[in-house]
């Protein structure tokens, strides 16, 4: 399994508890329009992602992330730097 696929799986595992409607996840799944998350859910989820990967995703970066694929890319970039 590639590093990216592994990161995708970890992200998917962390999405699961908040995926109330059981939406099937793909690279293009949108947090807002597909998962229909409100700002409080995003907050909880982002904190969990940050702690899992020991990174910081600033609110400035969060504003640019719309899909699961974009989040995986951001996590890859941030963990590579660390």
């Amino acid at each position, binding site marked *: 399994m590639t590093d990216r696929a592994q990161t995708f799986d970890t992200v998917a595992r962390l999405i699961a508890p908040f995926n109330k409607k059981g939406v099937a996840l793909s690279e293009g799944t949108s947090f807002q329009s597909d998962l229909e998350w*409100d700002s*409080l859910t995003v*907050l909880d989820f982002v*904190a969990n992602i*940050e702690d899992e990967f020991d990174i*910081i995703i*600033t*609110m400035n970066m969060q504003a640019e992330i719309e899909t699961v694929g974009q989040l995986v890319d951001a996590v890859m970039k941030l963990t590579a730097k660390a």
Partner: protein
Amino acid sequence: MTQTALIEPETADLMTKFDGLIAERAALLAAGVTDPFAIVMDEVRSPTEAVIKGRETILLGTYNYMGMTFDPDVLAAGHAALDAFGSGTNGSRMLNGTFRDHMAAEAALREFYGTSGAIVFSTGYQANLGMIATLAGRGDYVILDADSHASIYDGCAMGTAEIVRFRHNSVEDLAKRLARLPVEPAKLVVLEGVYSMLGDVAPLKEMVAVAKQHGAMVLVDEAHSMGFFGEHGRGVYEAQGLEGEVDFIVGTFSKSVGTVGGFCVSNHPKFEAIRLACRPYIFTASLPPSVVATAAASIRKLKHAHNKRQHLWENARALHGGLTALGFKLGTETPESAIVAVILGDQNQAVAMWQALLESGVYVNMARPPATPAGTYLLRCSLCAEHTPEQIKTVLARFEAAGRAVGAI
């Protein structure tokens, strides 16, 4: 030369985005309830009593913690300034809008907080907006509590710094995030003494220690604690022994002080530079002379308001204890501040209960997501030093009746 047909483009209506909000409000009103966000005070008789739609109402949802709004000395100061300086300043603090009483209010603040600097803004919202957006620039970091007030979030959004959030009141979460940030950039940790939705107090002592350990400066918003936390009434930071450890204190005149306006106090030797750079300070009209005169008079009196402090805490304990005994679920286990938040199941129950209270002559605040943490619906009570034990008793009886009527207890 070709003639281009004139096609009138259809105007895209910018107001369409509010359709959801309009529909939600219409549905609420269609259920026959009073709009919780359209209350009019027809008369205000004292810090704790008003007339709403012809009904005498006990005010239990204002931020008039210290009951200064009808203090005779405060009113006299306002009248005198109104007569001597007119109704407004017609200008910015930076140009023609600084009058004698703006200086008096800043002097009163320096004395109250024991700081070398004080800057008065036109509202508390603008004080946070201006301080945060101006202090933290490109490449700097602002680290804020997830439950921060809108003015703090908006200060972050207005500025150019990198913004990092930590879980509400979690020292561990703050420490983890600070440890992950690069060492070199300047950092500002933004905290509140009392969080206004649930009325819970921050563990400032531990948080400020963690911030200092990581070389961050600290700004604390003490809007909901001024006048009754700490020996001099300076706020939660004073009550937790942090005198001299917090770089910037932001506060407001619209709560304990009893008028309107905002401020920041600091001992930083370069603090005055904020006046030269802060857009929400520069590009707005300054407060009217009567407002700053009432603020200055009120702050001077708050310094010595030991009896009021005691009454306020007695009232908070009585209401918290009474509501707990009735079986209501509250935002804090113990009375941590002058805010007592009753947690309800959903919007319908909250609105029904809010209306039942209003019809029995008690006004409280209704608060709903996204303003509230964890998507809760709250009836927020805030105490006043001037509430009498009889009023608290009356309020508790009305809470009991309303709570039973809607099935909340």
